[in-house]
């Protein structure tokens, strides 16, 4: 058989047959359409339509590895927080560190302060420049108000800018006019000890709409390996407002504001003095709070041109054992879209961000200077060129950025998508992205460990930032394939090969004697330097299968492998340790079943491989949700989570400055009433 296929002639015949099938398919497709003109009005009104095709069309034609979490996905997952929702995205690595901390990344390099992911909430960047990481505990909204979460794996730096190195997560909430009326939801359970939210939306004058919401939750602790409660329970309160006005047929104005506060428990063992016993275990709470105000003005100039101007202010306050941070951020963005000719779609933009912080020194870690102001100027331009009757789409563009750490950065990318039938598309991309230094990499001093020596003063191992620390570089090659033969099946395959340079590494420097703080001690400095290269490659597969109109299956598969190579002169064991912080294999399957009488039965199974660099074994996670909608306005549901084992650990890397705890089996019940 194989010989037959590989003979030249046979292959040619084969290709001809495929080609003929492809040419004929639209003609044959036409004939199978039902005649709707003979259908009664009543039937037409009750006919479910596949409106998704247009939206899917947009994503189908994206020349990047994109995955979209829809409102339906959120509702039927039974999950209660944004980081947990991200588990359903193939290509993302999501792991609990403790009850209120997560390690989340795309395409490798995971950790509590995973620094190559950009997260935006309605256009507002939410990573902290202190570590270039995201405090996932404070990223929350009313989940019912989320329109969708778009996740782009791979560099999105051309449009989104620095830190969009391994991925961009874009959380988009619904317009105020889509959330009119009231919503009450409340529930309680074992880990979810109690939660409640209320939202109300109404008209704001004759041209606008608004909504306000309030939300509170109290979540219980995870477990220690001994079976005892870990002290990582947490509770948060949040209020928010969104209003949209159609000032004129051309202009819309959006106002979005929020305020939150909460406490999150943790246990951390940290160096607390330079005399024995050196370390102390702190058990307590992080105090966090913050808020934001955002306004956006969108104007449609003509069919070919529109622009948006956005301004926001964000405040973050955080106080915990390892550090304290108070930050103000002001950000102004302008973007314009222009279509010219039949083939070009141009987007360009300018941005300015000002951020100022005040850190609180701790014995464990301190920043020098303790307060710093930074400005980032940026601009981008991207042209989408559609050729051969829109079957080929080329996207060329670059971001230009000037920041206070490294000066000028250029991040170009070239992408191409070829939809050679309406149901198949291949795409590829080559992009450069940089991860600009975090404040910590230039300014921190952290005391990782201390011990006494038999003869002589105590010795302290301390990490030091380096003002000369520069950006980490990525050159990424991506290749993807999409199959979307109809509503029943879709398949999205993405492969990538990432080449990193100037990655962060630890260089051991000459020991010195320090007198302050007493007692006199020897410091073994570990300097943060750009001293490592690496490659990451992998395959990500997302599928969707509507077996019947009542049963949907969504499988996902992730394979990722990372090789890091520290330069000579650096501490390779320490620097390369993060190589083993990602599971090589991860897979999941979601099943959504609509039973009679408006009952929904949903199951999700995750299988996550072991983390080779840590003592974290592989684990399975099984979630189940049973929902019932007796009327259109009332929903009752019961969710059971982590059914596969009584407890498991998901992440335990060094250094994360918080004790890893174990996820336990849990259940909750919830009532949602809209009016």
């Amino acid at each position, binding site marked *: 058989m194989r010989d037959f296929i590989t003979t030249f002639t046979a292959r040619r015949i084969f290709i001809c047959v495929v080609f003929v099938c492809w040419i004929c398919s639209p003609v044959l497709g036409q004939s199978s359409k039902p005649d709707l*003109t003979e259908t009664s009005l009543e039937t037409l009104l009750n006919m479910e339509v596949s409106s998704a095709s247009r939206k899917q069309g947009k994503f189908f034609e994206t020349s990047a590895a994109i995955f979209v979490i829809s409102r339906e996905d959120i509702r039927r997952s039974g999950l209660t927080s944004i980081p947990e929702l991200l588990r359903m995205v193939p290509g993302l690595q999501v792991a609990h560190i403790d009850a209120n901390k997560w390690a989340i990344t795309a395409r490798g390099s995971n950790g509590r302060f995973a620094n190559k992911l950009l997260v935006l909430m309605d256009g507002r960047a939410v990573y902290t420049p202190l570590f270039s990481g995201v405090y996932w505990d404070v990223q929350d909204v009313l989940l019912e108000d989320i329109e969708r979460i778009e996740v782009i794996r791979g560099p999105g730096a051309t449009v989104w800018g620095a830190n969009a190195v391994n991925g961009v997560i874009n959380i988009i909430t619904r317009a105020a006019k889509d959330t009119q009326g009231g919503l009450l939801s409340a529930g309680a359970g074992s880990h979810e000890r109690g939660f409640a939210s209320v939202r109300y939306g109404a008209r704001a004058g004759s041209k606008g709409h608004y909504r306000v919401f309030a939300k509170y939750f109290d979540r219980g602790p995870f477990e220690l390996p001994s079976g005892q409660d870990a002290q990582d329970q947490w509770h948060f309160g949040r209020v928010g407002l969104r209003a949209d006005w159609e000032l004129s047929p051309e202009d819309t104005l959006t106002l979005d504001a929020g305020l939150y506060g909460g406490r999150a428990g943790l246990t951390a063992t940290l160096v607390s003095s330079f005399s024995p016993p050196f370390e102390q275990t702190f058990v307590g709470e992080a105090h966090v709070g913050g808020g934001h105000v955002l306004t956006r003005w969108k104007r449609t100039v003509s069919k070919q041109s529109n622009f948006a101007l956005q301004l926001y202010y964000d405040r973050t306050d955080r106080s915990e054992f390892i550090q304290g941070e108070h930050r103000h951020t002001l950000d102004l963005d302008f973007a314009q879209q222009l279509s010219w000719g039949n083939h070009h779609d141009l987007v360009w933009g300018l941005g300015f961000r000002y951020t100022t912080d005040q850190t609180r020194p701790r014995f464990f870690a301190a920043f020098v200077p303790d307060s710093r102001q930074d400005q980032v100027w940026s601009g981008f331009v991207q042209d989408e060129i559609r050729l051969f009757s829109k079957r080929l789409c080329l996207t060329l563009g670059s971001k230009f950025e000037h920041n206070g750490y490294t000066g000028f950065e250029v991040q170009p990318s070239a992408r191409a998508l070829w939809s050679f039938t309406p149901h198949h598309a291949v795409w590829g991309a080559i992009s450069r992205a940089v991860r600009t230094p975090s404040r910590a990499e230039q300014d921190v001093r952290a005391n990782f460990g201390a011990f006494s020596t038999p003869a002589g003063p105590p010795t302290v191992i301390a990490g030091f930032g380096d003002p000369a620390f520069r950006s980490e570089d990525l050159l990424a090659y991506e290749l993807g394939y999409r199959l979307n033969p109809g509503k029943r099946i879709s398949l999205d395959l993405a492969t990538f090969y990432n080449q990193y340079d100037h990655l962060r590494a630890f260089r051991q420097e000459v020991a010195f004697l320090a007198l302050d703080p007493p007692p006199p001690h020897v410091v073994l400095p570990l300097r943060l330097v750009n001293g490592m290269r690496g490659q990451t490659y992998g395959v990500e597969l997302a599928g969707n299968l509507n077996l019947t109109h009542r049963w949907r299956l969504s499988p996902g598969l992730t394979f990722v492998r990372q090789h890091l190579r520290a330069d000579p002169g650096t501490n390779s064991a320490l620097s390369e340790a993060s190589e083993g912080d990602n599971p090589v294999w991860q897979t999941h399957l979601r099943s959504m079943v609509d039973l009679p009488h408006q009952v929904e039965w949903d199951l999700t199974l995750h299988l996550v491989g072991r983390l080779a660099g840590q003592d974290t074994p592989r684990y399975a996670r099984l979630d189940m949700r049973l929902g019932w909608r007796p009327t259109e306005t009332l929903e009752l549901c019961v969710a059971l989570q982590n059914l596969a084992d009584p407890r498991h650990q998901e992440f335990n890397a060094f250094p994360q400055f918080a004790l890893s705890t174990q996820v336990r089996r849990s259940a909750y019940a919830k009532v949602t009433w809209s009016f």
Partner: protein
Amino acid sequence: MDAGACVPSQRPDRPSLLSAVKIARSMFFLFTLAVFVSEPLAWAQSDSPSEYQVKAAFLYNFAKFVEWPADAFPDTNSPIIFGIVGDDPFEGELAGMIAQKSLSGRKFVVRRFRRTEDLRQCHILFISVSERKFVPQILRSVHGSSILTVADTDGFVRQGGMIGLVLVENRVRLEVNPQLAERSHLKISSKLLALARIVGESGVKSN
């Protein structure tokens, strides 16, 4: 320890290059197979119509359930003209659907208009979503004539349109302002009105 695996001196030799070609070839084979298998799958999937197929069927039904004044047609055999202003969201589907149909001796014709053209040469005017910013302007330009105005843009009926096609939970719902139609001497059948959400004059706030 396994750093040796990455040392560039171990350059790939011929056998691995050959196997790469083999892998590429079988990938190509699988890929063509995928095309081959999935195309028939695509044809078979016609169980649920698309949004605009259903909306086109509604437009056809409007011709059946709306009565025009006699002076709206030059003679008893002249066709009922569907006008589409802006991009055609039906992608030719509407024309295909009604091509062979007729209604009490009248055939159907679909005409595409640009916003700047005279839109009064039709009986049912569908305003495409591409023209959503110009809805008030378009409605003004056909004001006073016996044209049934239909659109699926947000708040169309509140803006002064006659029939709005609204998508609610993946189903097409109707919003109708019968008073407005009446003033244009159009009679919408009670059967249609019974199935629609009636938007009264009070709903007409702007324009």
